[in-house]
C-alpha cells in the first residue's frame, strides 16, 4: 500500500477473478407471531478483495439484516434464507451453523454499532482478544497475550500493554470501538462487515475510526461492507453503494456515479433532504413525505410509490426489478431519474414544490396517493 489515507481504492475491484463475496437473490424471511416479515428481498451484489461497498438505508430498510444474513448469524428457528451467498466460491447458505462458526473470525467478521454490548463486561480486553486467538489460531497463552497487545497497537490504542489489562467500562466509546475492531481483525478475516460502527460515536472520534478502518483495509486487502445511514460517511469511504429501501436494493452504482446522478427517486430525495454545505440556511429542505414502510406491511408494487413525487399507476401495481444499464449503474424504478436520454432529472425545484404541497394538505394528499395499497403510510408523518 502506498497511501495511508482512507480513500476508496477504485482500482481494487479488478484484482482477482473469483469475487470475495457473491450474493445472489438472497431473501431473508422471519417468522413472527404477526406473520412473515421479509427483511431482505432478492438482494444481489458482488464484492472483491480490497473493495469497500456501502450499504445505505433508513431504519427498517434491512441493511443490518443483510450483514447478518451473509454471516448466517440470525436465529435459525425463525429465519428462512433463499438464494445464494458464495464466499470465495463456496456456498454459505447450505452450511450448518457449526460449519459457519468455523468461518466466523478467520474469514468473516463483523463490528457492531454498540461497542459496550459487543464486549464482555467482566473480562479484561486483553483476555477477550487472547480467547479468540487461542480458539481460532491455536496459539499458546503467551503467544496470544503478545498478539493481543500487537492488535491493540494496530488499532492505534495508545499504551496497548497497559490498556490490555483494563475492563471495557474503563475505556471511552472511541477506544472501546477500537477494541471491537481489534477483536474482529484478530484472526485476520478476508471480509469485514461494519454495521453503523460510528453512529454511537462523536464526529471527531468517528472520523478517526473510519480513517483507521480504511487504512487497515488497505494493509490487509480485506473486503469491507460499510453499513450506514450517514450519506457523508458513505460518500467519502466507499467504492460502490447499494441503496436499500423496504428490504430491497433499489439502486446500485459506483459511489461517484450514485452521488453525481442518483436515478432512483428515493436516492435523489434522500440526497436532497440533508442540509449540505451548499444549501442556504433556513431555506426549506426537500423533505420526503411520509415514513419508511413497516416491513410487515410492504405496499403492492414499488414500496416507495406512496412517498414518491413521480409515482404513476404502474408503480402502484407492479414491482420494478433492479435493472443494470450495462455500465454498472442499476436501478429498480419504472421511471428512473437522471438517465441520459430519459426523462429530465435533477428535480430539485420540483421536489421542493411537491413537498410543500404535501405539507399544506397533510393526511389528505398522501392518503389519496396510497389508494390501492393496504399500507398505512399516512400523510405528514
Amino acid at each position, binding site marked *: *500500500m502506498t497511501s*495511508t*489515507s*482512507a*480513500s*476508496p481504492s477504485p482500482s481494487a475491484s479488478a484484482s482477482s477473478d473469483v469475487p470475495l463475496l457473491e450474493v445472489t437473490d438472497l431473501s431473508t424471511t422471519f417468522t413472527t407471531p404477526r406473520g412473515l416479515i421479509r427483511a431482505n428481498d432478492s438482494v444481489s451484489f458482488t464484492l472483491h478483495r480490497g473493495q469497500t461497498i456501502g450499504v445505505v438505508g*433508513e431504519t427498517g430498510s434491512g441493511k443490518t439484516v443483510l450483514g447478518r444474513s451473509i454471516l448466517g448469524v440470525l436465529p435459525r428457528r425463525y429465519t428462512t434464507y433463499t438464494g445464494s451467498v458464495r464466499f470465495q466460491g463456496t456456498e454459505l447458505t447450505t452450511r450448518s451453523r457449526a460449519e459457519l462458526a468455523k468461518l466466523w473470525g478467520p474469514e468473516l467478521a463483523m463490528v457492531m454499532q454498540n461497542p459496550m454490548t459487543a464486549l464482555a463486561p467482566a473480562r479484561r480486553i486483553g483476555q477477550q482478544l487472547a480467547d479468540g486467538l487461542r480458539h481460532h489460531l491455536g496459539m499458546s497463552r503467551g503467544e496470544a497475550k503478545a498478539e493481543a497487545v500487537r492488535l491493540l*497497537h*494496530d488499532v492505534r490504542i495508545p499504551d496497548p500493554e497497559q490498556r490490555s489489562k483494563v475492563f471495557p467500562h474503563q475505556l*471511552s*466509546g*472511541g*477506544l472501546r470501538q477500537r477494541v471491537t475492531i481489534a477483536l474482529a481483525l484478530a484472526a485476520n478475516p478476508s471480509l469485514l462487515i461494519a454495521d453503523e460502527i460510528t453512529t454511537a460515536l*462523536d*464526529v*471527531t*472520534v*468517528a*472520523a*478517526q475510526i*473510519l*480513517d483507521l478502518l*480504511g487504512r487497515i483495509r488497505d*494493509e*490487509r486487502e480485506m473486503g469491507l461492507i460499510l453499513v450506514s*445511514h*450517514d*450519506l*457523508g*460517511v*458513505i*460518500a*467519502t469511504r466507499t467504492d460502490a453503494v447499494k441503496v436499500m429501501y423496504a428490504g430491497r436494493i433499489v439502486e446500485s452504482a459506483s*459511489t461517484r456515479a450514485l*452521488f453525481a446522478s442518483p436515478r432512483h427517486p428515493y436516492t435523489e*430525495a*434522500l*440526497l436532497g*433532504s*440533508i*442540509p*449540505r454545505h451548499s444549501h442556504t*440556511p*433556513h431555506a*426549506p*429542505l426537500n*423533505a*420526503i*413525505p411520509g*415514513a419508511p414502510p413497516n416491513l410487515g406491511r410492504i405496499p403492492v408494487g414499488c414500496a416507495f410509490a406512496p*412517498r414518491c413525487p413521480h409515482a404513476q399507476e404502474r408503480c402502484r401495481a407492479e414491482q420494478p426489478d433492479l435493472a443494470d444499464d450495462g455500465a454498472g449503474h442499476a436501478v429498480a424504478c419504472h421511471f428512473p431519474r437522471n438517465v441520459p436520454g430519459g426523462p429530465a432529472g435533477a428535480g430539485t425545484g420540483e421536489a421542493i414544490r411537491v413537498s410543500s404541497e404535501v*405539507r399544506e394538505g*397533510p*393526511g*389528505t394528499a398522501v*392518503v389519496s396517493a396510497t389508494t390501492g395499497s393496504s399500507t398505512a403510510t*399516512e*400523510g*405528514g*408523518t
Partner: protein
Amino acid sequence: MNEHGSEELNHAAGADRTGETLVDVRNLSVTYQVPAGRLQAVSDISFTIEKGETLGLVGESGCGKSTAGRALVCLPQPERANIIFEGVDIANLSKAKLRRMRTRMQIIFQDPTSALNGGRKISDIVAEPFVIWKTYPNRAERKKRVDELLNAVGLDPEVFGDRHAHELSGGQCQRVAIARALALEPSFIVCDEAVSALDVSVQAQILNLLEELKEKYRLTLLFISHDLSVIRHMSDRICVMYLGVICEIGPRDAVYDTPRHPYTSALIASLPEPDPTQEPQRPPIEGDLPSAVNPPSGCRFHTRCPRATDVCHNVVPPLTPFADAEGHFVACHHPLEPGEKLVRADDTARAGTASALAQATG
C-alpha cells in the same frame, strides 16, 4: 474571565442587533454528584438569546449542551446563576412563580416516543396543558384549539386525534410533542436534539416544520444538536461548547466559514460532506473527550489541540471579541487566522510513523 466576558458579550450582542434580548444567561454552572466525584457539566457560562432568533448550541456528547439547555428552562432550577427571561430572573424564582413562567417556555426532547405516554390519545396529550391551566374550559372550544394545533404540525386531526401515541411513527410522535409544546403559546422553545433520533428523510420534514412554526408563532429557539450541518441550517448564531465551557460563539457564517477556535475547525473538518469527489480528510485531532469530573487545567481543549503551548496548560483563555464579525467571541490563546486550516501536530512525523506501522503489521 467570565464576569468580564459576559458584560462584553451582552454589550456586543445588544449593540449590533435591533432585537431585544429574550434570554440572558449569566454565570450558569451546573454540577452533578456522581460516584467518581463532582462533575461540573456546565462551568460558568454566559450568553444571550435575542427575540426571534435561533441560537444553535453544538458540541460532542458530554460537552454540557443538553444540561445548559435544560437549565435554561429550569429543569432543574440551577443553583447559582442568573437567567433573565422576559425580564424576570427565573433561576431565583419561587416554585409557584416559576410554574407560571413555565407556560412561556417549552422544551422538545430527543426521543419523541418516550416523551409521550404511549397509551394516551393524541388529542388528550395535546389538550393536557389546557386541562392543567384550565384554559378553554368549554369542551368544543378546546377541541377546536387542539385541532388547530394538530393541523399546524401537519397531522390531520380526523385521522390522528383518536389514535394512541404508540401507534405513531417517530416523526409523527415528534410532531405531537411539538404541538403540545406550542399549546400554551410560548415565546421560547428549547429543541434538545429534536431530530437526532429520526431517519434522514423524516428529519428534513421536522426541520422544515420548525422553521415554518418559528415564523408563524414568532418563536425564539435554542436549537441543540451534535450535528453541525443541521445547526448551520437552523441557526442565526452558533455557540460551540467543549467540556462545559463555550469555545466560540458568534453569527452563523462567521463561526462556520471562518472558525477561529481550533475545536470548531476540527468539528467542521470531521464532518463528511456527502460528496465522493472530495478526498476524506485525515481527522485533525486525535483522542477522545477527557473526563468532565477532572477536566484539564487551563484551556480544556489543550490535551487534544495541535496548537497548544505552555500558556494553554496553565491559563484559562477568556472569551474575547473578534473584529471580523459583530458578536464573534472566541476563547483561545492561539486562534486561527480567517481561512487557516487546523494542521495535525504529527503531520510532519507522519511518513516515519506510517512506515513503522507497516513494519509492525508485517
